[in-house]
């Protein structure tokens, strides 16, 4: 497809379990971003990848959160030992340098 895709679309997990969320950016986009939106709140920046540069992790809320990106391709966001406050929609976006960001549909994470 031509857009950003994310999987799974929904994930329900138990508190304390690890989860892995996947993002497939638009082909050729060098920049990739992860955001999250908790219920009733705006989008919150988590992490940013640009080419081979070190990622900007300044938005990660705790060391339970980590993300990786393979070259300029797929990215995975991992949350270890999930907590109920991690429940949110996790959004991935990609862009060419300095251009608008295109968002995926998001993964809705529910931690019971």
């Amino acid at each position, binding site marked *: 497809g031509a857009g950003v895709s994310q999987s799974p679309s929904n994930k329900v997990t138990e508190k304390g379990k690890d989860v892995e969320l996947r993002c497939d950016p638009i082909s050729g986009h060098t920049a990739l971003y992860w955001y999250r939106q908790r219920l009733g709140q705006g989008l919150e920046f988590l992490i940013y990848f640009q080419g081979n540069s070190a990622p900007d992790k300044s938005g990660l809320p705790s060391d339970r959160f980590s993300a990786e990106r393979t070259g300029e391709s797929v990215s995975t966001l991992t949350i270890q030992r999930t907590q109920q406050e991690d429940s949110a929609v996790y959004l991935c976006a990609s862009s060419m340098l300095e251009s608008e960001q295109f968002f995926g549909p*998001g993964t809705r994470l529910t931690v019971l």
Partner: protein
Amino acid sequence: DQQVKQNSPSLSVQEGRISILNCDYTNSMFDYFLWYKKYPAEGPTFLISISSIKDKNEDGRFTVFLNKSAKHLSLHIVPSQPGDSAVYFCAPKGSFYNQGGKLIFGQGTELSVKP
């Protein structure tokens, strides 16, 4: 420390009238100001943007105004249509060279356009 504020969580407008969505920010380093529109269960989609060197940008029914001295921008939709009903996010960003290009989102304003 909220860098971006959209003080109206919701707005209801009659079809055909003007919708005005407001956004205030605190960081003078922002280079671009974007508006995104979000429907339920979908990711945000880009709507319109304005560079910090301009004070107005128009695209069809959508116009964005920027007042840098007041650190305020607004999105005008005229005429409003029922299909415009969505959550609108103000999202300023710095350049890639000073803030990595990440977007700082406001809390969003839910617009409802009544037929």
